[in-house]
């Protein structure tokens, strides 16, 4: 299934990413932020792709833990890696925005902080998988579920703790001129995330097949 899905997804995301710069360039320049405001189009989208990755990680971890489906584990590890990549993108663009907007690179703005913590949890997930030894896939699945359950608490607590980010309501009320490129790149990032996921899952599947072949060979 993955093999057939991947070319479609990657093709679709290509369409999105070729058109996105045109839309972004043609969108009007925001008065206060100037050119830097354009970051927002992919900053926001990268975040969303990261959250998508974490949700997939949490759900597939639960499936693996309770239903013992090896395929779910392969999806979980792929989702974790994809989420790390998109999170990193957000973490790099976040401070660039911050320095223009508030004059400092890092000001513990709520959403950047959440992303940093999530990034830490994801790295911990991969560390556990790498250094946990045999059986660590099961343990990592437990951690994956905890990561997802943490989302609402991180969101609420960090927001109360520190709030100077542009409030969330900015997004829906954005003038159409800003809105179209934003939602366009949002869709592009989500499709790219799914494309990467299918490719990564496919790699894991092939690894599993290789392992199985090795074992079958040894059994002869």
């Amino acid at each position, binding site marked *: 299934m993955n093999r057939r899905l991947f070319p479609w997804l990657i093709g679709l995301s290509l369409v999105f990413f070729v058109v996105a710069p045109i839309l972004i360039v043609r969108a009007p320049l925001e008065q206060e932020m100037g050119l830097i405001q354009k970051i927002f189009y992919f900053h926001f989208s990268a975040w969303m792709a990261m959250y998508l990755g974490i949700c997939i990680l949490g759900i597939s971890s639960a499936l693996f833990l309770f239903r013992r489906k090896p395929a779910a584990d392969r999806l979980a590890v792929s989702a974790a890696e994809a989420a790390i990549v998109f999170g990193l993108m957000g973490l790099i663009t976040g401070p660039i925005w911050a320095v223009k907007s508030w004059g400092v690179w890092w000001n513990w703005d709520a959403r950047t902080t959440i992303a940093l913590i999530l990034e830490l949890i994801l790295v911990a997930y991969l560390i556990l998988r790498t250094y946990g030894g*045999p*059986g660590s896939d099961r343990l990592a699945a437990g951690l994956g579920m905890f990561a997802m359950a943490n989302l609402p608490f991180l969101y609420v607590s960090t927001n109360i703790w520190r709030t100077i980010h542009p409030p969330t309501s900015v997004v829906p009320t954005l003038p159409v001129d800003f809105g179209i490129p934003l939602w366009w790149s949002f869709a592009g990032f989500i499709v790219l995330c799914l494309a990467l996921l299918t490719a990564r899952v496919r790699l894991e599947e092939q690894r599993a*097949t290789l*392992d*199985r*072949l*090795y*074992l*079958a*060979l*040894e*059994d*002869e």
Partner: protein
Amino acid sequence: MPPLQITDFTQVTLSGVSRHYGRRRALSRVNLVLSAGEIIGVLGPNGAGKSTLLGVLSTLAEPSNGDVRYGDLTASAGGAPLRAQVGFLSHELQLYPELTARENLEFFAGLYGLDRPAERAHEALARASLSERADDLVEGFSRGMRQRLALERTLLHAPRLVLFDEPFTGLDEASCGTLVTRLQQLRTAGRIVVLATHDLDVVSQLLDRAVLLRMGRLSELGSKGSLRERYRAALAEAPRGRRPVPSGPSGSGPGESPA
């Protein structure tokens, strides 16, 4: 306390049981039937998969392929009531050294939900000839004393299936004798006893049946000659390494389809 549901079985059947970690194979398509009133020896060099086999039998580890049936039940269907019928004495003795012998026994009697835990502990201490040291910390016990205590702890709930991992290592002659007697009693009582060991001298008189585990593969030992001779002969026969690459997929076994 509510009585645990009785799960009775007189046979344990392993069919095509494999267990692997990534590419490392610990057990490879093991078929074995264990019957009540039998002491089965699982022999083999270190790292042959003996502990993995016992782990799978104890229900703590799940096979990667194949299944284990206790009577008609699988481990996952059996759950806690099935665990109540299994006793497992691993090489590490599963005792708390900071507790006294009596406290150790009473703790496990409580966990197993046995009635009259104090009396049970008392009787078990007598069987282990530790009545006089009952209220001493296990810390101060010799290996032999600990082993006797751990043995009684394993048998406290009268399990149907009893698993021993290298129970003779580090025992003096007297403790060995006690253990042998106790094992024979279990056989008479109609329990299923599995003994993983590489110590042939002590067990040669004891085993009803012996199987050889080597590189995760199981083979029955013949019945001719002494145990030592049979073991030697089987070791010589057993596969030494990877065979040549097969030409087609026809050789793959059940549950191992390389597709």
